[in-house]
């Protein structure tokens, strides 16, 4: 069980505002959704110990990492987090294998190789980060974080640097990983689509406050047909055995799927 209560002053483009959030989570995949500058990354960094809130309380599985009242503030080294940075932050001077082993408490080469194998990179283990592709780097960053056996996995827009196709694949992979390891995961994104695909729970943040919480209900949707009617695209789909027609304006479609998301 993880308890997060954070109050921290932020300097935004439109002036100063307070990041003030309070939530609990279990071993789920929680997505922090919000526009850039809303404080979600700061929240993630506060949990990791990379930033210090003015007030608050952070407890992870029974151990207190931060308590402003009691003056407890564990340094990042003492908090068992797996942090995946937006640009992956792989160490350029180390091979992929060395990167993965870097954070292990007990250096276990076999385990590191196994992790690399899981993301199909065992053959590239001796390559340096600059010699592999963006998607491969993302996977190394993920297994490096997992190799530390974290209490919580913190993902800061991990897929934003990838192109469309690759992102879809990686979303799938990320989800599977989280299920397999059952690690409480907190991911920051500004994409509704991504949030809906991955999250067990979505926390929407705007200007430092929790705006709403959403539990996406996943209903299997089967695509049957599509056709054009003037400016409208009409999709024929089946949901729970019943056939539906969804009509979407072409322009809206071009602006992205986020429009049809629940709001």
């Amino acid at each position, binding site marked *: 069980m993880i308890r997060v209560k954070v109050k921290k002053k932020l300097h935004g483009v439109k002036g100063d505002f307070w990041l003030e959030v309070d939530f609990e989570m279990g071993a789920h995949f929680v997505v922090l959704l919000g526009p850039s500058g809303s404080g979600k990354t700061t929240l993630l960094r506060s949990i*990791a*110990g*990379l930033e210090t809130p003015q007030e608050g309380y952070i407890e992870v599985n029974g151990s207190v990492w931060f308590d402003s009242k009691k003056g407890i503030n564990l*340094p*990042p*080294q*003492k*908090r*068992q*987090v*797996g*942090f995946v*940075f937006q*640009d992956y*932050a792989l*160490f*350029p*001077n180390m091979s992929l294998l060395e990167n993965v082993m*870097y*954070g292990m*408490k007990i250096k276990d080469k076999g385990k590191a190789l196994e992790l690399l194998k899981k993301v199909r990179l065992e053959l590239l283990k001796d390559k340096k980060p600059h010699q592999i592709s963006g998607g491969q780097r993302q996977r190394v960053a993920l297994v*490096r974080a997992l190799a*530390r056996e974290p209490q919580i996995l913190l993902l800061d827009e991990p897929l934003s640097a990838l192109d469309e196709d690759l992102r879809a694949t990686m979303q799938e992979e990320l989800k599977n990983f989280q299920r397999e390891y059952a690690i409480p995961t907190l991911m920051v994104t500004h994409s509704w689509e991504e949030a809906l695909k991955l999250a067990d729970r979505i926390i929407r943040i705007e200007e430092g406050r929790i705006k709403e919480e959403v539990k996406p209900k996943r209903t299997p949707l089967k695509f049957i047909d599509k056709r054009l009617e003037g400016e409208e695209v009409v999709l024929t789909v089946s949901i729970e055995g019943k056939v539906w027609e969804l009509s979407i304006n072409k322009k809206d479609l071009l602006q992205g799927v986020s429009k049809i998301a629940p709001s």
Partner: protein
Amino acid sequence: MIDLGALWLTIKLSLITSLILLVVGIPLAYYMAYSKSPFALILEVITTLPLVLPPTVLGFYLLILFSRNSPLGSLLENLLGLRLLFTFEGLVVASVIYSLPMMTHPLISGYRSVPKNLIEASWTLGKSKLETLIRVILPNMKSSILVGLVLSFTHTLGEFGVVLMVGGNIEGQTRVASIVIYNAVEAIDYKTAHIYSAALLLLSFFSLVALYLINRRWFL
């Protein structure tokens, strides 16, 4: 036959100076690069001073500081039997101060060029600041370290004003190449002046060539 002893002495002085500066510079520049305290800023200004001060000003203060009549000078002599004025040891100390910015400046920009993310990633992976420094920061700023070494080496090679003030002109101790050139010109011994000048020129030139070559290969 021209005595090249002073040339070797100069190379020895420059080598020792740049190695000491590396050891001193790594923690010092680390503090200046990352600390947000106002003291770090003041320290950065102080360590840059030798770059802009006339060497004679630096030499004059060191002369007073090293003198046997000064508290530091007498303390060192009585406690350690170490004399800094007109000795090789004193020249090393003076050169370290004189060439300090040549080491700290490249190191500071090296430290600042290492992405903050890499350092934070190392912290979140449970590594202490020291281990992060050794395993992540320093290996990713190798070229800055090399620039610092070469610059402090070549800068010390050409040191003159400070040596003149605190070193005197003692064979095997403080008679460095630049002093030999100065004396040779005074004694109208242009042959010695030519040989020493050419040696310093070539040494500096090839140090810089080596630096640029290595840098290119690292970046391409």
